[in-house]
């Protein structure tokens, strides 16, 4: 049959092979791709945080570079618009001395898999080493990781409503900087959980790192079915839901949620779920306020809170660089020795040579 002949002539990796989360780890159990928090254990997440800590100083040096990825080519493959995520990935790659190519491929959600695959094949033939992928559809990063040449690493910079694991890790990094330990923390995630890849990754990361409680607060229209199965408790009331909370994570509310009948109006949403100084008082006095950005002031968060003393929103952004440096360096296996244990190894060892 010609079709089967065609099948056998396809490149070896173009097969309908089962996907799996071990896809992320190589034979030695080291990070190969970074697609989702799911399937990664506490040690590995801690290793990412420790490595990031060692990179945190790099941005403050006069020469903001370490040569870990010198000679490597990283392609930022953005099928969906983004400013801050792409910029921090670009900065992270540059600080690791990699060559970076930015590709913004505007596509509609209905574009065919062929073109996605063709794009990958074309870039592969240009000898790239890593793809940083953002795509509007859940599973896109997995698909690319499964199809791409074996030497290429794939970092998920957000796929549909599925995962945004680097955002989750930079938030974990920020939380650990301030709160030191996860085991006593109660974290509330507020807003559009249903459509949020950030929320899904945050929940998995917090549960893996042993947070005492993850609570989601939203109206039913913005919660996915069986949300408790993600390992969270649920509240539909912000004022009550913030009780005893150490970390308040706000999510961005997209305008289109109003037109698809998920919410009546921005003002009603703000009244019920917008974070104000008044409502924040219900949380613990030393609670921190986070937001993955971009912020809708007056929709999900009041400016007084966003710019207030409890807000760590800008710190999240700057931490994004160190965390993404850590993940890229780990996925490319270019760190000198297993860090994790001694957090200072990479930065001192490598910045010193610059």
């Amino acid at each position: 049959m010609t079709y089967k002949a065609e099948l056998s002539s396809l490149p070896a990796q173009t097969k309908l092979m089962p996907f799996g989360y071990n896809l992320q780890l190589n034979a030695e159990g080291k990070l190969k791709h970074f697609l989702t928090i799911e399937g990664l254990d506490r040690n590995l997440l801690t290793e990412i945080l420790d490595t990031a800590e060692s990179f945190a100083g790099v941005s403050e040096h006069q020469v903001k570079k370490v040569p870990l990825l010198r000679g490597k080519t990283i392609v930022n493959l953005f099928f969906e618009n983004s400013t801050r995520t792409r910029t921090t990935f670009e900065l992270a790659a540059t600080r690791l001395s990699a060559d970076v190519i930015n590709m913004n491929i505007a596509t509609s959600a209905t574009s065919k898999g062929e073109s996605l695959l063709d794009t990958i094949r074309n870039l592969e033939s240009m000898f790239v080493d890593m793809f940083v992928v953002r795509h509007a559809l859940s599973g896109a990063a997995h698909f690319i990781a499964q199809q791409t040449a074996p030497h290429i690493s794939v970092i998920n910079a957000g796929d549909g409503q599925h995962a945004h694991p680097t955002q989750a890790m930079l938030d974990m990094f920020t939380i650990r900087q301030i709160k030191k330990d996860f085991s006593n923390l109660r974290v509330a995630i507020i807003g559009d959980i249903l459509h949020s890849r950030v929320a899904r990754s945050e929940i998995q990361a917090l549960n893996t790192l042993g947070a005492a409680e993850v609570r989601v607060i939203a109206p039913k229209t913005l919660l996915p079915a069986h949300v408790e199965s993600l390992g969270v408790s649920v509240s539909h009331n912000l004022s009550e839901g913030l009780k005893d909370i150490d970390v308040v994570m706000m999510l961005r509310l997209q305008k289109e949620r109003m037109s698809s009948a998920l919410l009546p109006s921005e003002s009603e949403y703000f009244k019920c779920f917008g974070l104000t100084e008044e409502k924040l008082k219900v949380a613990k006095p030393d609670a921190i306020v986070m937001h993955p950005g971009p912020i809708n002031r007056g929709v999900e968060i009041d400016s007084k809170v966003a710019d207030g003393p409890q807000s760590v929103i800008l710190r999240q952004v700057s931490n994004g660089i160190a965390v993404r440096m850590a993940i890229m360096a780990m996925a490319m296996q270019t760190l000198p020795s297993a860090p994790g244990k001694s957090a200072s190894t990479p930065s001192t060892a490598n910045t010193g040579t610059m």
Partner: protein
Amino acid sequence: MNQIRIDHGRIIDPANKIDRIGCVYISGGKIISVTDEPAGFKADTVIDAGGQIVCPGFIDLSTRLRDMGHSRKATFKSEVIAAAAAGVTTLCLQPDTVPVIDTPAVVELIKELAEKAGYPRIYTVGALTQKLEGTELSAMLSLKQAGCIAVGNANQPVRNLLILRRAMEYAASHDLLMMFRPNDFWLGNNGCAHEGAVATRYGLPSIPEAAETIALAQCLELAELTGCRVHFGQLSCKRSVIKIHQAKKYGLKVSADVAVHQLHLTENDMTPFDSAYHVLPPLRTEDDKQYLRQGLAGSTINSICSDHQPHDLDAKLGAFPETEPGISSLETLLPLMLKLVAQHAITLEQGIACLSANPARVLRLNSGALTPGFSADVCIFDPKRDWQINSENWKSQGINTPFWGQTLTGRVTHTLQEGMVIHRL
């Protein structure tokens, strides 16, 4: 005149309540006896069916053969070979072909393609509405006269209930069966997975059971209002089984089938983002699966269909939500039915009835049984033979099956259609 004798097989013919070792005598394309050798019978061909099961050829209520506008996915030529290898001797082509089966000319074209492929028993399901758009009635009487065995709207929901009502009234006026896959457009919300824990975890757009059960409930009401005969296709959830059960008890003349993979796979079996599991209706929960099985055992659901939907490789290569739904499933029909028997969900006799006598009754066909005088459509299979789903054994052009690489038990060794051997292992 070609005379065939099938020897020593275990004959299972649920319609005639036969289950015994014996011989089947075929002459002139018809069954002439399953008991004694008819006087003057001289076999030109003898098939030894020792250790095997001889049963009526299977009738598949929902099949796609692609071809015409979709020949890169599959062709009649490739798929009738798969059908024959699956023991299927009659199949119902759903109307969502390209072009849609909404004019007699398309019906004629399909008949020609079927003849050319050497597999005449392809029945067409005519479109219920023009181009399946759900806005204007199709010329159902002309379609019936051209040979359509039923009408339906395939996977396309009829969004406007007034139009569905009119279509059912019109179909009832011409005594046409409507095949209906209940599926509310709005509640379905362009989803690609069951609205449950798995879709929640992987952030997949999801479809609640209510998208099926609400459309089912509305159609049941309209069946009573219009008197239209309705067959519900590819049910996927517990509450649908309950609704059909209640409707039957109440006295409505309705029937239902289930796609064979729904009886084995659940959302938990989905390897994350593996497009081989992308199917509509979506794979649901263990509870739904058990209810569907009980529905079969208790005859609430009386038929098992393949819901065969072969695809080319490109259709399945992409991020999960953008891949095309559907499983290439003709060739796994028998082994998956036998697995239900092995797991004591149904009896072997029930399983065979669900693939032959019962769908024949739904379609009001004089087939699906080994009754003397009926067309000699016969399937002979070895219930114990293991075989691997691989490119060597697989006939369909679509390799989109989640069972790829697995070893299943039960294989068709011979298929006879109108007394002609169309498949021999």
